[in-house]
Structure formats: structure tokens, C-alpha cells
């Protein structure tokens, strides 16, 4: 009656040695990024093409967002594609290359030296992305069936390669101008390939699997996910082509409409997953993750304001900063906050207790971090986030500094909880069992 898998599929999980360094690096990067924000809050009253703003953005996008996603996806890809990871060595290489490259790149931006540090940083990051793509593509090859979540991840990683390649080209363009336009002109392209192609596609691809899984929801709708996939890619491709060959507001509006529609569909998907959940209780981490889905719409609102001709030029430049801030410090950070404490405790629990389960009392994975501290962190963070946007809108340095200090406190609490999980040791009574 039952087809058995004698190879014990559960035994082929990715080792924690690959995954945990990514989480630790990302946590420290968040702290560094907000420290930079605290000491450079005034940059948010100026044009977005400011060395400190570029440094902060790359610390957030690469050190925080990308590193934790790379780490988590090394663990999650086998779950999604139901096959083991192709190579542990490529996983280690991807971490080491990015870990060296990101500080070099951020330093290069901060002091605005587009020479050695920025170039080497960009090269290392690009090599890290290549290692990741090879690993993911090789893991997926020969799969039994096409899995929509896996296609999301692979496509997202190809967009990541494109934005990393374009980013390196832009660094070179500062010292050896070879592109037809100035570097500044290409920033919207570089940014949106990263934000929409990499972050949005990957977060939806992974979130659409994890959200129903953690809610234990009966809801599944691959067709809707394919529609979302095509809308996002069509929106991004049309933006890319119109940006390069026939820039016009109409084409941009088409791109925005496609992405907005995809986000609304994803919101509907999450709503159905919540509605059809078997587990009635929704924990704080899932609530934060679901809040991030709503927060996806916030940058779009700012984008409409920017492109909607509602504001004068001076305010428009400020709105671009607020738009970027809402993406990295709002939507992306919120989903990472939630998913960190849905995934990390389980990885560490597996490391510490895998040979003790069933033998006696072991703590639950959720006992490995302090949930009250987590709730406090989220509330503090949301307060700081709203205040920072207010400060950026008013171009008020005092409000920005105060908001950055609040965000810094939230980052400290996040790091405290992450380190508490990472350095978890079994209590003495658990060791005796």
C-alpha cells in the first residue's frame, strides 16, 4: 500500500555548518548597517546618490538581506525540490567570497573610492553569486517534476547574477567609463533588478511554500503562483527593455501595474493560506511574516507618488530615499525578522538535540530564543521605522537620528536573540538523558 523510500530522504538535509555562518553574518550586518545609518542619518536629507547612502544600502541589501536568504535557501532548497544540495563546498565558497567581498564593497562606497576595495568587493560578491547559482542549478537538475517554488528561486538567482554583474560594471564605469550613459543613470535598473528580480521573486517563491507549511494550511494553488511568476518577470523584463531602448512613462506604468497585480495576487494567496489553516494559533513570528506581506504595498505607494507626478522635484528625490528605505528596512527586514525565528531555532535544535529526541525532556525549538524580547524588538523596530520615514519626509536630522537610535536598539535585541540561539547549549539535566 505504501511506497517506501529506503534511502531515508530525511537524512539528506544540508549541514548546519553551511547555513549558520550566513545567519550570524547577516545579524551582524544589520547591526553595522543601522550603526552606519545612525552616524549618517543626515545623508537621508540629501540626494540618494550619496556615498553613505550607497554604503548603507549595500550593507542592507547584501550583508543583511542577501546573506540570510543565501543561508536559508541552502537549507530550504532541498525541502522545496525534494533533493539534496549538490555541493557543500560550493556553499562554503559562496559564504566566504561574499563575507570578504561585502565589507570591501561597502567600505569602497563609504569613502567613495571606486578603486581596489570596491572592485575587489564587487568581484568577490559576483563569484559568490556564481557559486550559489551553480549549486542551486545542479541541485535542481534531474528533478522528478517541475516545482514552481524551485523555478522562482532559480530565476531569482539569475536576476541576482545580472544585478551583481551590472553593479560591478557600474563600479568600473566610474574609473573607466565604457557605458553610453553616466553610472547614476543606471542606478534604477541595477536597483530594480535586485529588488524585484532577486528579493521579490525569491521571497514570494519561498514564502509561498513556508507560510502554508508553518500555518499547516490546506491551501495550495500552483496556478496562481505561476501567474504571479509570469507577471513579475514580464513587469521586470518590460522595465529593463524600456529603460534601455525606449524609455517612456507608459511602458513604466505597464511594469508597475504587472508587479502591483502580482503583489495583490500574492496577498490573496497568503489570505487563503491563513483562512484555510489547520493550526488556529498564529505565533508572533508568522504574524510578523504576514505583516511583511502587507508592508510590500508600502514601497509601491511611494513609487506611485514618485512616478505619479504628485510631487515637486526636490521632494521627489527624498521620496526615492523613503521608497528604498521602506523596501530594505520595511518589507525585507520584517520578513527576515519573522522567518529567522521560524527557521534558525530548528536548525540549531537539530544540531544540538537530533540524537536526544525521544529520550526524555528536550526543549522545543521555540524555547531556544526569548519570545518576549522578540515581541519587544518588533514593536521598537516598527516605531523606529515609522519615525525614520517621518524624519526623511520632513528632512529633519534630529528626528532621523532619534529614529536611527531606536532602530539600533531593535537591531541589538535581534542580535541578542540570534546569538542566544546560535550558542545554545543543552542544560545539564538534558545532557544526562
Amino acid at each position, binding site marked *: 500500500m505504501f511506497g517506501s523510500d529506503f534511502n531515508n530522504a530525511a537524512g539528506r538535509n544540508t549541514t548546519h555548518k553551511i547555513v549558520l555562518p550566513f545567519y550570524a553574518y547577516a545579524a551582524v550586518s544589520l547591526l553595522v548597517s543601522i550603526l552606519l545609518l545612525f552616524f549618517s542619518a543626515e545623508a537621508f536629507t540629501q540626494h540618494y546618490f550619496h556615498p553613505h547612502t550607497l554604503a548603507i544600502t549595500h550593507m542592507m541589501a547584501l550583508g543583511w538581506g542577501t546573506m540570510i536568504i543565501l543561508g536559508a535557501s541552502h*537549507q530550504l532548497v532541498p525541502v522545496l525540490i525534494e533533493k539534496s544540495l549538490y555541493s557543500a563546498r560550493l556553499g562554503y565558497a559562496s559564504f566566504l567570497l561574499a563575507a570578504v567581498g561585502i565589507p570591501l564593497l561597502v567600505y569602497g562606497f563609504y569613502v567613495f573610492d571606486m578603486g581596489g576595495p570596491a572592485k575587489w568587493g564587487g568581484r568577490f560578491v559576483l563569484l559568490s553569486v556564481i557559486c550559489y547559482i551553480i549549486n542551486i542549478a545542479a541541485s535542481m537538475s534531474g528533478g522528478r517534476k517541475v516545482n514552481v517554488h524551485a523555478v522562482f528561486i532559480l530565476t531569482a538567482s539569475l536576476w541576482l547574477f545580472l544585478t551583481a554583474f551590472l553593479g560591478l560594471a557600474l563600479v568600473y564605469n566610474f574609473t573607466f567609463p565604457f557605458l553610453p550613459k553616466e553610472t547614476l543613470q543606471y542606478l534604477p535598473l541595477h536597483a530594480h533588478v535586485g529588488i524585484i528580480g532577486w528579493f521579490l521573486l525569491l521571497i514570494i517563491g519561498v514564502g509561498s511554500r513556508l507560510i502554508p507549511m508553518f500555518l499547516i494550511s490546506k491551501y495550495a494553488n500552483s496556478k496562481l503562483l505561476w501567474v504571479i511568476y509570469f507577471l513579475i518577470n514580464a513587469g521586470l523584463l518590460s522595465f529593463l527593455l524600456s529603460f534601455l531602448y525606449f524609455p517612456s512613462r507608459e511602458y513604466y506604468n505597464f511594469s508597475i501595474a504587472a508587479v502591483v497585480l502580482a503583489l495583490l495576487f500574492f496577498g490573496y494567496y497568503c489570505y487563503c493560506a491563513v483562512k484555510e489553516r489547520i493550526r488556529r494559533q498564529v505565533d508572533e513570528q508568522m504574524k510578523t511574516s504576514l505583516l511583511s506581506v502587507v508592508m510590500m504595498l508600502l514601497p509601491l505607494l511611494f513609487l506611485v507618488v514618485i512616478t505619479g507626478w504628485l510631487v515637486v522635484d526636490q521632494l521627489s528625490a527624498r521620496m526615492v530615499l523613503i521608497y528604498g528605505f521602506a523596501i530594505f528596512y520595511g518589507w525585507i527586514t520584517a520578513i527576515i525578522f519573522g522567518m529567522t525565528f521560524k527557521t534558525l531555532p530548528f*536548525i540549531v535544535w537539530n544540531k544540538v538535540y537530533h540524537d536526544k529526541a525521544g529520550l526524555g525532556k528536550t526543549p522545543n525549538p521555540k524555547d531556544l530564543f526569548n519570545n518576549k524580547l522578540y515581541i519587544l524588538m518588533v514593536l521598537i523596530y516598527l516605531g523606529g521605522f515609522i519615525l525614520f520615514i517621518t524624519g526623511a519626509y520632513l528632512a529633519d536630522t534630529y528626528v532621523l537620528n532619534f529614529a536611527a537610535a531606536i532602530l539600533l536598539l531593535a537591531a541589538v535585541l535581534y542580535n541578542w536573540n540570534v546569538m542566544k540561539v546560535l550558542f545554545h547549549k543543552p542544560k545539564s539535566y538534558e545532557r544526562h538523558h
Partner: protein
Amino acid sequence: MNVITNNNIRCIIALAGLEQVVDPEIGLNVVDLGLIYQVDFDEENKKIFVTMTLTTQFCPMGESITAAVKRVMEHTFPGEEVWVELSFDPPWSHERISEEGKKFFNQ
């Protein structure tokens, strides 16, 4: 009990033992979750075969859960060799959750 077995009495003892094995993410034991498909006893050769599933294939907790099932079975039936096999055919579905399990989820 929606578990296939060749020995009802010994299976009830086995399932009572397996109620100690809890899915760490969900907080519910593997029996009420409906993860246990089949428990067969080869009394002549002192072997026990457990066929079970996971809520999702490559579940990160899968290795710990299957190891715990093996340990508990060895503890419940000392001196007998225990084989735990994973099956995803059919895959787990919420319909396998017991009435107790449904009460747990509705809390």
C-alpha cells in the same frame, strides 16, 4: 486507529510508546499527526518494521523524528531490531490527523 499492522495488540503498545515522539515544530506527537502508516512485527526473527511519513519530504526535522521513533520502539520492545522506513506515497495530508490532534490544533 488508521495504522496498518499484522498484530493489533502489539501495535497499540507501539503507538502508546510513539506518543512520546513529538514533532518539535508543531508540538504534536507523531501518532496524532498521522505520520505512522504501518507497524509490522516479525516475531520469529524479532524484527519490527515501522513505515512512516513526514509532513513534508526533506523536512529539516525529519532525521530527528525518525531517529526518535527508532529509539522509542527499541525502548518499548527491548531486544527486538527496529527498522524505520520513510514513505511519501501517499504523501501526508491533514486528513490523517486524529480527533485528538484536531482538538490540539483548534486550541
